[in-house]
C-alpha cells in the first residue's frame, strides 16, 4: 500500500463524492459572492479621489484577497473527515494559540489587538476561532448527547475559552456570535430546548449581575444604552453626532433606500462617505440603500436559503460529527448574517461583524470559504449504512 504524504493524510480530492456535493449551496454562495463583488466595485467606483486618499474602499485589494483565500473552499472540501475528526482538538488548540499570540504579537489598532500582520492581508484569529470552535464542539458532541449535567461541562468550557479570549481583545461582538453557534450545536447534539432556554436565561442573569458588579466596561454598557435609546428615529437623531454616530449613518443609508433603492453606487453612504466600515461591517446598509427594501429582503431570503440548504444537507448526514460540523457551519452563517443585519437596522446593539461572502476583509473571507468548503465537502459524504464506522471507508 502506497504511503500517503503529509498533505495526502489531510486532503483527498478522490474521496469527494462529486455527484453528492450540494451544488445548490455552492451556487447560492457564489451568487452572494458575486453580489458582494458588484457592490464593492460600485463603492470603489463611486469614491472621489479625496476619499480614496483618506483610505476608502479598495476593490482591487478585495479582489486580491478573494483570489488568495478562494482555494480554501477546495481545502475545506478535500479535507479528509477522518483526519478532521481526529485532529479537531489540535485545530481548536491552534486557534486558541493564535488568539493568545495576538495578545502579544498582534497589531494594536483603535485600542484593540485583533490582527496579526501577514504579507497578503492581516489575519484576525477570532474569525478562524469560530471555525475551530465548530469543529471542536462537533468533536466533543459527536459522542455526547448531553443527557447528564456533567455532559455540558466540556462543550461549554470549549466554547467559553475562545469567547473569553476574543472578548478580551476586546471584541465583544465576535465573542457574542459564538453564543448562538454554541447553543445551536448543543441543540443539534440533543440538548433539550428547555435546557437551552434555561442557559440563555442564566446568561442574561449573569450579564445583569456583571453589570451590577461593575464588571462590564462603561463603553460596552454605553453601546447597549445607546441601542435602547436609538431604536426610534427621534432617539437616534438626538445622538447622531455622539454615541449614535455609526448607527445613525447606517440607519440613514438603509432608510434612504426606500422600497426600490437608489441604484447601484448611488447611495448616500457612497456619495457622502460618512458611513464607517461601509465595505465590511456596514456593507448591508449600502446594499439596502442601493437595492431598496425588496433587494435587501431578497438578499436576506437568499442568505436564509443558503443556511437552510446547508442545514438540510447536514440533516441528511448519517455521521454525527459531520452532521454537527455542517450544522455548525449553517449556524455560523446564520449568526453572522442575522447579527450583522440586526445591528445595522437597530434590532441589536452595534458591534463589528462582517457579512459572510460579501464584506471585504481577508480574515472574514478566509474563515467563510473554509467553513463553506467544509460544509460542501462533508455534506457530500452521505452514507446509507447505519453503522457508526461509516467514516472508516474514507
Amino acid at each position, binding site marked *: 500500500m502506497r504511503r500517503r504524504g503529509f498533505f495526502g493524510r489531510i486532503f483527498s480530492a478522490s474521496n469527494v463524492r462529486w455527484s453528492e456535493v450540494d451544488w445548490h449551496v455552492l451556487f447560492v454562495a457564489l451568487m452572494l459572492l458575486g453580489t458582494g463583488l458588484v457592490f464593492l466595485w460600485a463603492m470603489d467606483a463611486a469614491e472621489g479621489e479625496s476619499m480614496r486618499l483618506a483610505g476608502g474602499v479598495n476593490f482591487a485589494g478585495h479582489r486580491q484577497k478573494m483570489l488568495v483565500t478562494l482555494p480554501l473552499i477546495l481545502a475545506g472540501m478535500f479535507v479528509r473527515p477522518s483526519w478532521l475528526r481526529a485532529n479537531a482538538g489540535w485545530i481548536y488548540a491552534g486557534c486558541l494559540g493564535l488568539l493568545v499570540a495576538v495578545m502579544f504579537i498582534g497589531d494594536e489598532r*483603535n485600542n484593540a489587538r485583533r490582527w496579526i500582520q501577514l504579507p497578503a492581508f492581516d489575519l484576525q484569529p477570532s474569525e478562524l476561532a469560530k471555525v475551530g470552535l465548530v469543529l471542536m464542539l462537533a468533536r466533543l458532541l459527536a459522542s455526547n448527547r448531553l443527557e447528564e449535567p456533567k455532559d455540558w461541562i466540556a462543550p461549554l468550557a470549549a466554547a467559553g475559552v475562545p469567547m473569553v479570549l476574543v472578548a478580551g481583545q476586546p471584541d465583544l461582538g465576535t465573542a457574542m456570535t459564538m453564543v448562538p453557534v454554541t447553543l445551536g450545536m448543543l441543540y443539534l447534539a440533543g440538548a433539550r430546548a428547555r435546557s437551552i432556554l434555561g442557559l440563555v436565561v442564566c446568561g442574561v442573569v449573569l450579564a445583569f449581575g456583571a453589570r451590577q458588579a461593575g464588571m462590564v466596561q462603561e463603553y460596552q454598557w454605553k453601546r447597549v444604552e445607546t441601542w435602547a435609546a436609538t431604536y426610534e428615529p427621534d432617539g437616534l437623531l438626538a445622538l447622531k453626532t455622539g454615541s449614535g454616530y455609526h448607527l445613525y449613518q447606517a440607519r440613514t443609508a438603509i*432608510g*434612504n433606500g426606500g422600497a426600490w433603492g*437608489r441604484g447601484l453606487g448611488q447611495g448616500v453612504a457612497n*456619495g457622502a462617505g460618512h458611513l464607517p466600515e461601509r465595505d465590511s461591517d456596514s456593507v448591508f446598509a449600502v446594499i439596502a440603500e442601493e437595492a431598496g427594501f425588496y433587494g435587501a429582503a431578497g438578499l436576506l431570503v437568499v442568505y436564509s436559503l443558503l443556511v437552510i440548504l446547508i442545514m438540510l444537507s447536514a440533516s441528511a448526514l448519517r455521521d454525527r460529527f459531520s452532521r454537527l460540523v455542517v450544522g455548525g457551519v449553517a449556524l455560523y452563517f446564520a449568526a453572522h448574517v442575522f447579527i450583522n443585519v440586526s445591528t445595522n437596522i437597530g434590532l441589536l446593539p452595534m458591534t463589528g461583524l462582517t457579512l459572510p461572502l460579501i464584506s471585504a476583509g481577508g480574515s472574514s473571507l478566509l474563515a467563510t470559504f473554509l467553513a463553506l468548503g467544509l460544509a460542501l465537502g462533508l455534506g457530500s459524504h452521505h452514507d446509507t449504512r447505519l453503522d457508526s464506522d461509516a467514516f472508516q471507508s474514507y
Partner: protein
Amino acid sequence: MRRFGLPIGLVLLTLVLVLARLYDVQVREHRVWASEAAALERSETILPHTRGAIYDRKGRLWVADEVRYELEFVWRDFRRGHPLGNLAALRSLLDASPVRLSEAAHDAGLWAEALVQLTPQGIRDFAQGKEASGGRWLQVGALPEEGRKERARAERRPARAAAVHFYLQRLLGVTGRERGALRQQRSDRPDAPYLELVARVRQGRGELLAEVLQRTRMALRTRIDASLQRLEFFAYAVDWTDLWDPNWGPVKPEPGVLLLEVLERARREAEDAAADRLFAAAAGFRAGRLSAGNLSKLDLGWLRRCVYWDEPRLAEWIVSRGNGWVEQVENVLAGHVFARFKLKTGRAPADRVLDALAHFFAAPEVRPIPGLPVDSFWESFRELEVLEQLPLAVRGGEDLRAADLRRVLPLEERALRRSGLVGLDLVAEALWSMQDMDGGPSWAGAEAVNRTAEELIQLAERAGAEWQPGELEPIEDVLLAWDDLLQMRIGAVLGSLPQPVAFSSGRLRGALEARNHVVKDMDARPRSFSREPSMELVHLVGRYPADFAGFQVRSVTDRVPVALSDWARKVRGGEYQEPRTLFQEGLGLVRSPQLVKQLEQRPDQIELDLLQNKLELQPSDERRIYEITAETFHSGQAVGSSGIEGYLDPELSGLNGYREVMGLQEQSSSGRPALFRPPSDGKPVTLTLDTSLQRAGEWVINHPEPAPAGDSRPDDSWTENPVGAVVLMDVEGPILCAASAPLEPGLVTGGADGQAAFVLERTLRQPGFHPAGSIIKPLVAAFGLQFLGLDPNAPRVVCSHYTERGKPGWGKVDCHSSAGHTLQAKALLGVADMTLSKSMAVSCNTYFAQLGETLFDGDEFHDLFRIFGLGEPSGVRSLPLSDRRRGGLREEYRVAKNEPFTPIDRQRLANGLVEISTTPVAMGRAYCGLATGMLPEAQLIAKIGGRSVLREPRPLGIDERHLVTVREAMLGVTDQRGGSAHDKGLSEADLGFRFVCKTGSADYVPGFVPPYGGEFRRGASQELVEGMRKHTWVAGWFPAEAPRYVLVVYVHDTATTSSHSAVFVASQFLREPAVQQLMAEARAEQAQAASGETEQGR
C-alpha cells in the same frame, strides 16, 4: 430532519422579524431617513456678499473689498511631508519627547544617517520595550525588564513603532509603488537597515547593491539639504516685521532661526490643543477649569504618553492651562458676560447679571441657548461643570459624598433663591454671601460689594453693546472670586482621594480611543502664518506645494482704502509724508459683528438647521431660509462701525446668497431640489468729496505754512502742531473737501486743551465749545437788514465808553482796536462814521454789539439761527433712507437755550461769542445761503447704488438786495486797508480770483498767550502770560462775482487771532493747484454757458 426543524424554524422566524424591522426602517420611516440622507449629501454654503465700494464725486475709487492671500501653516502636513518634519517626528517618536525643529535642523544630516540605519527587527524590539540603535547618533534605551511588555504598551511603543516605519518611508521618499516591495523586503531581511531595504527595492537589473546604496544615501542627503535650503530661502522672503514678538528674546535672530521658532510655536499650539481635547474627553470638562495646583493632583501620565511629551513639557501645559481661567476672564469671558447682560432683555437687570455669571459655571448641557426665551436660569442653576463631572471622571469618584459636591457659589444658596430680593439688593446679597464661605474674596467688604453690585447693574442697564477699557473690572472681580471658591472646593475634593488622582478606566478608555482622531484633527488645523505674504511666497507655496509641505495659501476679503493722502510731498524736515487714508475718520472703519449680535442670531441658526433638514420645503420655508442666510454673519464678515461705513452700513452691506449642492441630485428620486440664491452685493456709494481737493485740504491743515515773516502776531506753536479743519463746499450743498487735523494721535502740543492728542473728524464735530466768532457778523447784518430795519449807511457811534478793562467798547464788549474806531473818529472828525461796510471790513465788535442790543429783541436771535440753519443738523445725516437706526457718521450741533436772550447776551451773540457753538460744515452751509440766497443741506453722499440722493436748497427768506449789501460790505475784509484779511494773501492778485470772506476769532479757554497787546517775536524766548486762547475762522466764497464754492477754515486753540492764523491757512489752501484747477474748470463752464447764452440771443 430530526433536530433541524427547530433551527430552520428559528431561521425563518428571525428572517420574518428582520424583514419586518427592515420594512419599518425602509418603508415606514423612509421619509425621515431620506430627509436625513438628503441633508448628508447636501452641502450648504452661505455665499458672502461683497460690500459696496465707495467712490469720490468723479468716480475715483476710495474704498473697496479686496481679496488678498493669507499664508497658513498646517503642522500635520509639515510633519508628514517635509524632511525636517519627518526627522523631528521620528526623534519625538523614539525619544517620547517633543524634539524641537531647531535641534532637528542643526543635526539633520547626522540624524537622517542614523535613523535610516534602523532595522525592522530593531523597530520591532523597540515596540517590545527593548533598546533601538541607529549608531552613535541614535540610542533609545530599553525599558526595565520587569513588566517590560506592559510598560511598552503603556508607553504606546507598538503604535510609535508603526509610526516610525511610516516616517522612515517618508524620509526616504518611498513611493506608493515601492511600498509593497519594501514590505516584502522588511519581512525577508528584518536585520537589514532601512536604507539598504529601500536600496534593494530600487535596485535595477544588473546594478550592484553598493552603487544603489550609495545613490539612495546621496538622494537622502540631497533631499534634506535641499529642503533646509528651501526653508532658509522661504524665511528670507517673509516679512518678519509683524511676526516677530520681542518677548521671544532680546535679539531678533536670523530669518531662518526665526522661521523655525514660529513653526515650533505652531506645533506646540497643535499639541496643546490635542492635549486639551484628550483631557476634556477623559474629564468631561476643559483643563482650564482647574487651577494649576488642582491639575497637578491628577495623574496625567496617560496624557503625556498620548502626545509623546516628557515631564517638563507636561508641566508647562499644566501651568498654562492652570492660568487659563484667569487669562480667559481678562481676555474673553468678561466680554462674554457683558454680552449676555444684553440678552433676554425681558428679564430684570439683576436677574440678567446673575444669569450671565451663572452661565460660565454651569455644565454645558444645562446652559440656555442665547436668544431663546428662558424664564429663569440662575434660580434653577444646579450643576457646576467640574463638580458634576468629578464623580464620573476620577477613580473613587463614586464614593465622594454629596455634601462635598454642593454649595460652592452664592447662587446655589437656597436662602438667596428664596429671599425675594430684587435689583441691586439681590446682586449685592449674591456677592455678600461669599463672605460666609471659606475663601470668600478679600475685596468683598460691604462698601466694595455694594459698589460692585451697582456697577454690574449699571452695565446690564446701559444701552450699547460695546465696552470701554477697564469697564469690565467688576465682572472680572466676581468671576475670579467665584473661581477661587470653586477651586478651593475642587482642591478639597481631590485631596480626599488617593494621590495622584487617577481617571476612571471607562473615561480613560474613551479618551484613548479618541486619541488618534484628536491628534490628527488638531494637527491638521491651519494656523495663520502671515496675513500679508509677498507674492513671491504665495507663488512658491502655490506652485511648489511638495517643496513647501505644511504651508498653504487661502484667500480672504479685506476692506481696503485705496485713496491715500499726498505722499509725494515732503513735510518739514525733508521727510516724505506717510500715506494715509483720505477722509479717514469720516469714512470710518469696518469691524467684525458685535458679540451680542452674533449671540442674538443663534435662534435663527437653530431654525435654519431645522429648515435645512426638512425633506420638503414649503415656499414659506424657502423664503425663511433665504431671509436667515441673507443676514447671517459669516466668518470674516465686516460691518460698518463708524463714519460713512457705519452710517450707510445697510446700503453698503449686501445680502448673502445661499447655495445647496446636492451630490446625487440628478439621480435622486427623493429629496427636494437644491436651493440657490446668488448674493446681492452692497450698493456702491459715491461721495461728494473730490480726491484732489480732499488731498489738498488734508495737506494744508496738517502742514500749514508759517505766517509770513512780517506778521506781527504769528502762533508758530499752532502751525507746528495744528488742530483744525478745512471745508470746501459747492454752494448747493455738496461738500468737496472736509479735512481735519491732526491725523496722528498723541502729539504733544502747546495747545491748552490737549485736542492735538485726538484724531477726530472736526468738520462735523465740536469737541468743547466752538463759538463762531465774527464770522457770524454777516449773518447778523443780513438778518438786521431784512427784518429789523438796519440802515447800512447810517453812521453809528458805537464806542460809548471805556469798559471795565479800560478799553473803548459797547456794553460788555471791547473794541478790538485798542483806541476804539468810533472814539478815534469822533475825536478827530467830530462825527461818528462807523457804517455797516466799514464795520464789516474791520470786524468792529462794538458796532455789532450795539446792533445786537438795540435792534434785536430777546427772541430774534433764535429766528436768525433757524434761517441760517444753525443749531440744527446740517443735512449730512438727513438722507432719505430706510428707518433703520443708524450709527456711524457723527455730527454735533448745539441748540441755543430756549428762552429770551438778555441785552448782554445779545451784545455778545451778535459777535458770535456766546450761545452759538457751531461746526465748519454748519457755517459753510450758512455762508452758502448768504452767497446765493438759498440755504442748502450739507451733503457728503452724492449717489447710492447709482441713484442720486442730492437734495435741492431751500430759499433763505432774505431779499437779494439785502444780501448784496452784506456781500459788498464783506469785500472790504480783503480789499480795504485795515480790513481784517487785507494783505493776507487772499486778494485777487494772490489767488487769481476774487475771494469774499469774513474772519472770526472767539475766546475758547484760559491758557498761555503773549502779553496783552504784545507781539510774538520769532526766534526769541518770550514770556507768556495767562489769557484766553481762541478759535479762529475764515468763511467766504469764490468767485465773488458768481459764487460757486464756499470755504471755511477753522483753527482750534491758538494764541492769536484769525488775521494771524486762519487767513494764512485759507490763502494756502486757495493757492493749491487743485483749487486753481477747480476754478479753471468753473471759468471754462462759465464761458461755455455765456457763449451758449450769446448763441441763444442771436
